[in-house]
């Protein structure tokens, strides 16, 4: 029996949304189902908003507004994308709108750094060599990284947050932002060059 070779024309199977059941229950008025969605996605969305604002208080307030808007808009969610992609898009857009309205020089208010950083291979590599990262304490490094991020424009900070910190691929970022993948790449390129200038002191010699 001849084997059926895969071809490029074979359509990709869309993964079923893991949140579908919770979303349907929440649409029907089950508030506990929506609470479960909040618990499930709070961490990633918190990270997104926090890395864009570098302010804990603003992050919590904005995240409240994001989930509130998602709750009010839930009946309009048709399932064309996963629930997570949908609420993530809401979060990105609301964060960008928030940042463009607020005073750019708002004080940084940072979360603690998880002790797991000590096990990160890149951190270990950077601190094991004769490297300015090794000489700086973690708090100082954190402060400088956040200051550098705040020097970027909101649009550049968004792509760095999504790609470098949260690990989203270019094509997904382009769908969320409504721009081409080429635009995402060029924003990343520019942002990385800006960050190189701001973080020159921490680069390996």
């Amino acid at each position, binding site marked *: 029996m001849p084997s059926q070779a895969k071809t490029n024309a074979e359509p990709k199977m869309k993964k079923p949304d893991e949140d579908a059941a919770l979303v349907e229950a929440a649409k029907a008025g089950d508030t506990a189902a929506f609470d479960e969605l909040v618990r499930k996605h*709070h961490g990633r969305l*918190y*990270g997104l908003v926090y890395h864009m604002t570098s302010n804990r208080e603003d992050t919590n307030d904005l995240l*409240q507004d994001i989930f509130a808007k998602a709750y009010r808009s839930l009946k309009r969610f048709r399932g064309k994308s996963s629930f997570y992609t949908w609420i993530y898009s809401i979060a990105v857009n609301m964060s960008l709108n928030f940042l463009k309205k607020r005073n750019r020089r708002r004080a940084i208010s940072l979360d603690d750094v998880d002790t797991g950083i000590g096990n990160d291979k*890149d951190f270990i590599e950077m601190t094991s060599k004769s490297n300015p990262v090794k000489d700086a304490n973690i708090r100082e490094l954190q402060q400088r990284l956040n200051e550098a991020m705040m020097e970027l424009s909101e649009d550049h900070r968004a792509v760095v947050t999504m790609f*470098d*910190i949260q690990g989203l691929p270019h094509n997904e970022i382009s769908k969320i932002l409504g721009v081409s993948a080429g635009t995402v790449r060029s924003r990343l390129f520019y942002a990385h060059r800006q*960050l190189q200038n701001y*973080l020159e002191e921490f*680069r390996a010699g």
Partner: protein
Amino acid sequence: MDQEPLSDIQKLIRLKRFETPPTEAVDDFLVEFQRRQRSQALTGSSTKLFIERVSTYMSSFGRQKWVYAAAGAYVCLMLFPLVKPSTSPVNQQPAGGGTANPVGVRGSVIIDQPRYDPKQNQIRQLPTKVPEVIVF
């Protein structure tokens, strides 16, 4: 994540993912979320909610939303004169000229006005066609 080697800068920035809130943060967040939802249900402005829902509805149309919004505004503009009650021109035109400031004229109406009747050789209330004025 796209498989490309990370630069030094990317490795540095990626360290930010170790910045995390305390573990109990999500519980506190949920308590506050529920409190705000209850508060909004009791005191929320229906006008603000209506505006937000219209905005969310329009955003689902993408770029076509501007066409629909313009069409809606045009329809409202055309309907407005039909629903606004017209004011009587008698009340708007004081005797001897006066200081009425009609903003626009819409057609004409027939009203009784004191006029000289040559047949009767006297002043009588006669049907007269006058412009219907709209004063805001």
